[in-house]
């Protein structure tokens, strides 16, 4: 039971949670999209504010304890996540080949993301930040493989938070801007809308549907199906393809920037 003995840490967490949930979800419209602030964001900021750089209520011991078990706290969320996917499985099984194959587009991001991240000077953060679109399952995966208290964890948490706060507005804008190019059929774009979270899919597919009212039903259905599919395969694609690809590319590109092979990764704490 020693791990629960730091009652001060857990009491503080409880207070943070209650305050965050009392503030509740705040959304405001910006242009065509919506910025969404969720209780989890306030919880994160309040947690940070209590550490030595801020109010100094949480000490080094508390921070160590907390970062040591974040990975375990993610498990319940993952169980809930699986239960969101399960009821949609019958529809997913009927998906067309195009819907299934476009899921591999998730890997496209690695080819652009890793070089950029290394060029910008990120080190092992690159792995967490670019291996996938960083939704809940990917955060849990990085936590499981590397631990969330290292560089990889910082990378995946960073992209996760950015996606949570600005994801819907970013996706809504992206859908309309890319549509202007007239390179893609609305059906292809509709499937692309589903690559991230459900709210990203809803926002971007909504924009597309309003641009093509005659195809509204197909657009919304394709985006929803693609989103369900991403929820199912995102984690496994990362385990078997995304993460190995990212590691490989990182090792290849790191010497180009630093002139020396990538150092071995930080040990999982």
């Amino acid at each position: 039971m020693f791990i629960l003995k730091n009652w001060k840490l857990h009491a503080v967490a409880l207070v943070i949670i209650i305050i965050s949930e009392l503030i509740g979800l705040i959304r405001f419209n910006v242009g065509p999209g919506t910025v969404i602030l969720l209780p989890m964001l306030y919880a994160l900021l309040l947690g940070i504010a209590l550490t030595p750089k801020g109010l100094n209520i949480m000490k080094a011991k508390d921070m160590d304890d907390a970062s040591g078990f974040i990975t375990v706290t993610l498990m319940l969320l993952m169980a809930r996540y699986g239960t969101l996917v399960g009821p949609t499985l019958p529809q997913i099984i009927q998906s067309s080949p195009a819907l299934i194959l476009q899921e591999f587009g998730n890997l496209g991001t690695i080819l652009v993301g890793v070089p950029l991240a290394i060029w910008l000077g990120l080190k092992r953060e690159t792995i967490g930040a670019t291996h996938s679109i960083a939704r809940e399952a990917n955060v849990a995966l990085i936590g499981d493989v590397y631990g969330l208290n290292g560089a990889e964890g910082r990378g995946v948490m960073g992209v996760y938070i950015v996606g949570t706060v600005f994801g819907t507005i970013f996706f809504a804008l992206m859908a309309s801007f890319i549509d202007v190019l007239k390179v893609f059929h609305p059906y292809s774009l509709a499937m692309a809308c589903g690559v991230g979270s459900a709210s990203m899919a809803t926002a971007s597919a909504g924009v597309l549907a309003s641009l093509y009212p005659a195809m509204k039903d197909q657009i919304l259905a394709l985006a929803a199906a693609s989103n369900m599919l991403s929820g199912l395969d995102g984690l496994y694609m990362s385990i078997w393809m995304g993460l190995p690809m990212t590691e490989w590319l990182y090792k290849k590109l790191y010497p180009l920037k630093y002139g020396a092979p990538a150092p071995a990764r930080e040990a999982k704490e």
Partner: protein
Amino acid sequence: MTFFNIVYITLLTAVLTLVANLVGYKNGIVDSIPGMLILIAICLLGVLMARFMPGKLPSVAYIVIIGCVITYPDFPGAKIMNAYIAKVNFLALTTPILAYAGIGIGKDMDAFLKSGWRIIIVACVVFFGTFVGSAIIAEVVLRMMGQI
């Protein structure tokens, strides 16, 4: 981490989530307990499977699959379990995690601030790359199949 420590932390997270679920989403604690117990069982089964099954898959891989299977419409009792689990709001589960994550991040605050702006740029490119990658494949396949 020992199995029992995982059990304790899972139970602690469950209690904190029940509070968040009550305060933020008005789901009563007693009403939400059956669904929460199912989620706890899924987690612990997943952890055990990751330890004893061949293939060295991370426990999240098992946890998601078990969650999927037991809520698949044809699974015995799926409908009842779904109804219980629905009482546990997805977002309520995220708040405790991020509370601890915030406290834990304090330790690496300097590293976070140093890499923060870079990660924001990378995030935008990751979203863009995934979206366009998926659109390209969809376009090619749909054209090859003559569907557009």
